[in-house]
């Protein structure tokens, strides 16, 4: 049996993606954030988490998923990244699943950017988010 890794299925509007669960510190419930004037559209604001201000990352915009503008998110991922903690509003999350890496295949069915692999469970194809690549694009190597 191969090595298993934990993934969090996350929905962004109508798209489901898998996120490396080791990068997820917490899945928050409804969370309000404040837009910061003249901030970059991909990091449009800040929210409060454990008495700190976290940058809000707009995953939908980064992935090119159209969505209505809202400063209240039904669910928010708190991500632990080399740049610090980030808050990523999402539509929904499900229970963590464990997968052997052999079950993942290279990307060919999804058109979303920043995906490193896909899971085809016979019913649907779920891409795996390449978080390091996405963060690198976001921070521009800062």
């Amino acid at each position, binding site marked *: 049996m191969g090595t298993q890794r934990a993934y969090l299925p996350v929905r962004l509007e109508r798209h489901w993606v898998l996120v490396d669960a080791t990068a997820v510190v917490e899945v928050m419930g409804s969370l*309000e*954030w*404040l*837009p*910061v*004037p*003249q*901030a*970059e559209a991909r*990091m449009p*604001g*800040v*929210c*409060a988490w454990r*008495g*700190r*201000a*976290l*940058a809000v990352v707009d995953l939908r915009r980064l992935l090119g998923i159209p969505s209505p503008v809202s400063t209240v998110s039904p669910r928010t991922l708190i991500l632990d990244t080399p*740049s*610090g903690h*980030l808050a990523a509003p999402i539509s929904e999350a499900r229970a963590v699943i464990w997968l052997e890496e052999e079950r993942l295949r290279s990307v060919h069915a999804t058109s979303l950017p920043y995906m490193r692999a896909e899971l085809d469970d016979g019913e649907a194809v779920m891409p795996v988010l390449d978080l390091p690549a996405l963060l690198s694009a976001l*921070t521009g190597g*800062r």
Partner: protein
Amino acid sequence: MAHELGRALASERGSIGSDDYLVVPSTHAAFALQFADVLRIGVPREHSELPLVELHRVLGAAPPPEPRGARVLLLRSGGAEVGLVVHGRLTTLAARAVQRVNLPVSLVRSPSVVALLLQENRPCALVLERRQLIRALLSHYFSSTTASVHKESS
């Protein structure tokens, strides 16, 4: 301090410390300035000789849907004064009632916003930094003045 609101705030200063906040509503978010940064509060017609710029223009935010009840927050810029025009109901926030947390500036870069105020762990206002705000205000004022001079001369 000719204006009624200015007098009201002056009378409150007995209980409001210089580190407390004056909160300005906007279509974008609520913005807060520390009382120590605001010299006086007036109305635009009384300060027409000063550089006056609306807050939403300085911040690049959407204008208020029904701009009315304009006030001017007079800020000291070196030896002179500049005026920030704001709309809506001004309120106060005691520093002891809020938690101030700095923005993660390596990720969220905004010319004038430096911190977030939390009230009962919820974000309630973005803190404007006086010097950066004045720099942005003057930059906007002179660029719009230059544009209008060019328009008149052409």
